[in-house]
């Protein structure tokens, strides 16, 4: 190649000239410096991920009394519990499904499970003193059922409340996904609640978050009625009470409004 052509680049010859090398270096060196700086800004200003735990891959056995209504809860037997675990474990199904999706097979054999003692296997999800157990092995999650006299769940008195907050799916929120709120998680939360996981209303207070499982005015499931409000700021009015270690809020889903 002649001297006149030395600055003309031909890729398959790989003849990068000094001028071209200098130009590219002047571009790439600042780019390589800028990359970590931009990433620093992105990470530094990002919202916190919270401390929720999902013990993925650690399937454990649990025993306790099962309550089907108003939503599936296993009240774990007396005895020492791991740090951060509450005795009142909300049961959720594998994937984006409610626990009831997988309790049907056991009910065919043992009749209604409500009030019976169960031994199950599942995966712990916990944070903020709330505990959930995922029925990771689906139908095989229920290991044994012992009969017993169904004990009525102890409920506190109902109180009228008017609250602002966000409707979340508790399985993701308490540890499976981060972030599990707002626009980025909206579709996932809709799928989880549509699949039978009880919708949970989060109300922020100065003392921290307060969580209510949402039910209809007659105690019925309103999963599909609330789907349009999931992941957004909403205002609800209803009757609040506590049962099986969880707060419940009974609302008229047609009267839920956006709070902006």
């Amino acid at each position, binding site marked *: 190649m002649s001297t006149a052509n030395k600055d003309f680049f031909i890729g398959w010859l790989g003849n990068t000239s000094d001028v071209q090398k200098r130009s590219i270096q002047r571009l790439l060196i600042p780019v390589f410096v800028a990359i970590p700086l931009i990433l620093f800004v992105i990470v530094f200003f990002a919202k916190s991920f919270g401390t929720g735990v999902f013990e993925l891959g650690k399937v454990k056995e649990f025993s306790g009394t099962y309550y089907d209504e108003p939503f599936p809860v296993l009240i774990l037997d007396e005895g020492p519990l791991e740090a951060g675990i509450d005795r009142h474990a909300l049961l959720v199904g594998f994937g984006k499904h409610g626990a009831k999706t997988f309790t049907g097979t056991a009910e065919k054999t043992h009749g209604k499970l409500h009030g019976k003692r169960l031994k199950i296997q599942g995966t712990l999800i916990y944070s903020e003193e709330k505990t959930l157990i995922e029925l990771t092995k689906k139908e095989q999650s229920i290991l044994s059922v012992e009969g017993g006299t169904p004990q009525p769940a102890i409920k506190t008195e109902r109180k009228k409340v008017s609250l602002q907050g966000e409707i979340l799916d508790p399985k993701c929120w308490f540890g499976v*996904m981060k972030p599990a*709120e707002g626009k980025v998680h909206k579709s996932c939360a809709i799928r989880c609640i549509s*699949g039978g996981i009880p919708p949970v209303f989060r109300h922020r207070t100065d003392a921290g978050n307060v969580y209510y499982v949402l039910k209809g005015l007659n105690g019925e499931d309103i999963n599909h009625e609330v789907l349009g409000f999931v992941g957004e700021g909403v205002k609800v009015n209803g009757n609040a009470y506590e049962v099986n270690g969880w707060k419940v809020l009974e609302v008229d889903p047609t009267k839920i409004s956006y709070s902006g």
Partner: protein
Amino acid sequence: MSNTYTAVLWNPFKKKYDRILALAIALIVVSFIGLQFIFDANITVETLIIRTTSLTAVFLLHFILIIGPLCRLNPSFLPLLYNRRHLGVTMFLFAAVHSIFCIIQFHALGDINPISSIFLSNTKYLTISQFPFQVFGFFAFLIFFLMAATSHDFWLKNLGPRFWKNMHMLVYVAYALIILHIALGILQYENKLVYWILLIVSFGSVAGMHLAAGWKERKWLADQRKYVIENGYAEICSINEIPDDCAKTVFVGGQNIAIFKYDNKLSAVNNVCRHQMGPIGEGKIIDGCITCPWHGYQYLPENGQSPPPFTEKLETYQLRLVKDQVWVNPKPNAEGTYVEPVKIGQ
């Protein structure tokens, strides 16, 4: 260049290019993961994968889009253009990991099909802030897939350079979709001003570079004077205006023509390379061949044909030299037609 099918045609320059690309990717991945664990180690592995891959893809996409106008503004950057295809396919692979992980994480194992879930979970299509941003990402991913799958000279040859090039211009549609995906997605959650500034600066740098390059091209077109035409020939310039082994490019009679001066001769060919429609007239005569500045495709100046065994052909044009003035007939000859070069000084 190859005239037979080869999966990836490596050469030392491409290997060096890919090593620098790998270094840049390693810098992004290691920096992000490292910073994330320093500032908030509570992130889940899935979110770490989703965010690392999306950031890497977005960084690469911006760099890919800037290379084109950068080379138009300063040809010294042309070596960056040569292997841009590897950048594009690499960007697609990161976008693919991001997309697949998001579909599994947010849409799979539910009560409807995961692909349906992308479109049917959040149905607030009539709002802006709640618009289902995943839809933008989904269609951008389809475009990137189409582009990555056809990023090979096999497809370029079979689809034809014009169709292939037009199809690959869809990258701008995909880029617009990605900007919307970010603005109506993660920035509705991570809504601090600093993120909006980063997005606007990123978009502004891509748009600004394209506008600057477009302004330069427009200026070139505006500078094309109305040529005097006599007996079908247009008077172009003085012979001294064409540097040795280089070309004068003109737009006359609806034709984009490159007039090359070499070995005391003049020849004219169409200014559009048959490989990826590169500007042949910005190339040079190397070893007796017109050589495209983009990927080094070569053509013989007197007949516009690539030397055997290659088969690409350009239209040629008749030239005249009257005193020191170069005249061209803008009526093109069929591709590959031999035209006796005009000898200078006779």
